[in-house]
């Protein structure tokens, strides 16, 4: 027994790439992806880890990963997720995916979930590493009429509920949410993503991967996406230059304090 868990994954250009590799395409008004390393968005991996821990404890009956992406781009992310321990994957093949914002992504994910017969528990990252909208979990919860908690580090499931730790502005909230629930996951020391073993990587290729062309989801309500237009994405001009203060620590400290005093900062 246990709950049926779906983890939503997004692929992004590796956010750790150095700044000089970052460029914006003025036409699409999105980050240039061509030739850049793609990775699973930071917190999505933590979400998968939380799901896998639920499965390890017997609280989850199965873990499915779900992603909306151009199918060819999604292969590495899906393989990694399956190697980490997910049971199966569903890829909604949509060539528009990298440019879609959260409102449209959430609508597609909702349609895909309905097609999959729903889920008891849906986990997402608390934010994507690129657009950081933080909207997919709450919108998806509304779309599938589930309860919702965001910025959660720990999840326990049982008895038709999940009990979660939400990292809040004022500390840690313990929240009880009725299933079905959509929970967004942030990182802490308990959910550091596991590294797959060679054997798991070998066997990942045998796990089922279903690819669904986005049009097969039918008419996805996307009315909310109307009315918000991305006019520009611009890299702010760098206005500061760094003055490097040399010398022994005491000299460096002196030089710094002198400058900070001149600026009336101290």
């Amino acid at each position, binding site marked *: 027994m246990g709950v049926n868990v779906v983890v939503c994954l997004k692929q992004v250009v590796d*956010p750790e790439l150095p*700044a000089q590799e*970052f460029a914006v395409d003025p036409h699409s008004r999105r*980050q240039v992806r061509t030739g850049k390393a793609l990775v699973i968005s*930071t*917190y999505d991996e933590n979400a998968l880890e939380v799901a896998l821990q639920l499965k390890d404890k017997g609280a989850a009956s199965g873990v499915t990963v779900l992603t909306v992406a151009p199918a060819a781009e999604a292969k590495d992310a899906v393989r990694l997720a399956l190697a980490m321990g997910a049971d199966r994957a569903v890829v909604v093949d949509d060539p528009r995916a990298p440019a879609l914002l*959260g409102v449209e992504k959430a609508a597609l994910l909702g349609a895909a979930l309905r097609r999959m017969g729903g889920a008891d528990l849906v986990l997402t990252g608390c*934010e994507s*590493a*690129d*657009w*950081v*909208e*933080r909207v997919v979990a*709450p*919108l998806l*919860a*509304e779309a599938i009429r589930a*309860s*919702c908690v965001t910025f959660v*580090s720990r999840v326990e499931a049982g008895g038709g509920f999940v009990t979660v730790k*939400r990292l*809040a*502005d*004022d*500390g*840690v*909230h*313990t*929240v009880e*949410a009725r299933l079905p*629930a959509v929970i967004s996951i*942030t990182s*802490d*020391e308990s959910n550091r993503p596991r590294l797959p073993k060679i054997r798991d990587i070998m066997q990942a290729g045998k796990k089922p991967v279903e690819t669904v062309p986005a049009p097969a989801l039918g008419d996805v309500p996307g*009315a*909310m996406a*109307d*009315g*918000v*237009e991305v*006019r*520009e*994405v*611009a*890299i*702010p001009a*760098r206005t*500061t230059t*760094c*003055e*490097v*203060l040399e010398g022994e*620590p005491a000299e460096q*400290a*002196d030089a*710094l304090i002198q400058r*900070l005093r001149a600026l009336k*900062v*101290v």
Partner: protein
Amino acid sequence: MPRILVIANALDGTLARSALELLGGATALAGAGGEGVDALLLAPRPLEDAAAALGRHGAKRVFHAAHPALSTGQTDAALVAAAAAAARAEPEVIVAAADTVGRELAPRLAFRLRAALVTEAMELRMDGGALIARRQVYGGRAMATLAVTKRPAVISVKPRSFDVPEPSAASGTVERLAVEIDAQALGAVVRDVAAETAEVGLEEAQVVVGGGRGIGGADGFTLLQALAEALGGAVGSSRPPADEGWVPISWQIGQTGKTIRPNLYIAVGISGAAQHVAGVSGARTIVAINRDNQAPIFSLAHFGLVGDYRHIVPALTAKIKELKGT
């Protein structure tokens, strides 16, 4: 100019500073002396002082929802009240703080109202009939400009994006908003709140000393605390120390974590990942202390000290103390 509803969070029994910030932003957006700015006050019990404060800071009408279920972290209850207030006030634009509740509430309210949605906005202005929102994207490496033409629109605003306006003698009308909340029907219920005592309010501090992975462990942060103390400031961290459990999560500064705008930010052992930079780019002066002279943080800093923080930070602390004559 648009009729605006500000969602004012007093779910823990005191009015959040962000509510007043939002009124400042909304008043500027509404133009014409802030006509058409309303506020929804969410509180667990009647809070006359908070309602009056909203009026003094720019709300022409205050809709006060008071219900025991409108308590700390209770998004589901807040959502019921917000939907009721939207029906009553008929706003064209609804603004909420992108705080713990607001991050959940804004998208869900937008879905229910079939509204346009922008989250984590940092700047708002009108351009003809379009509401222009600007926000950080790609970990703060770029700014996106979004034009919102649909009404209603729900906008969540990153805390500290607007200044608290000067209070005036004006007062808004206060109207109690009856909300029916069935506590049994709420999907998610807060069972416990373990408040973390933040050190000197990180978000308010004029001087912040931040530590990163380069600090190496919990012990190293004592050196940073000594420096912060000498400067009368607060200590924060980038994501790795919080993830590793070296420091409380409440210390984390960045995209995920707090946004700071101090006069002076001293980044110690912090490489300068976009995730962190997003939270500190509002600092007036940035000092970077790092062993790696190629660390990206130096491209953001005004002053760079290359070397071992274990030697530099105590030297700095000693000099500051000397200067202050203590």
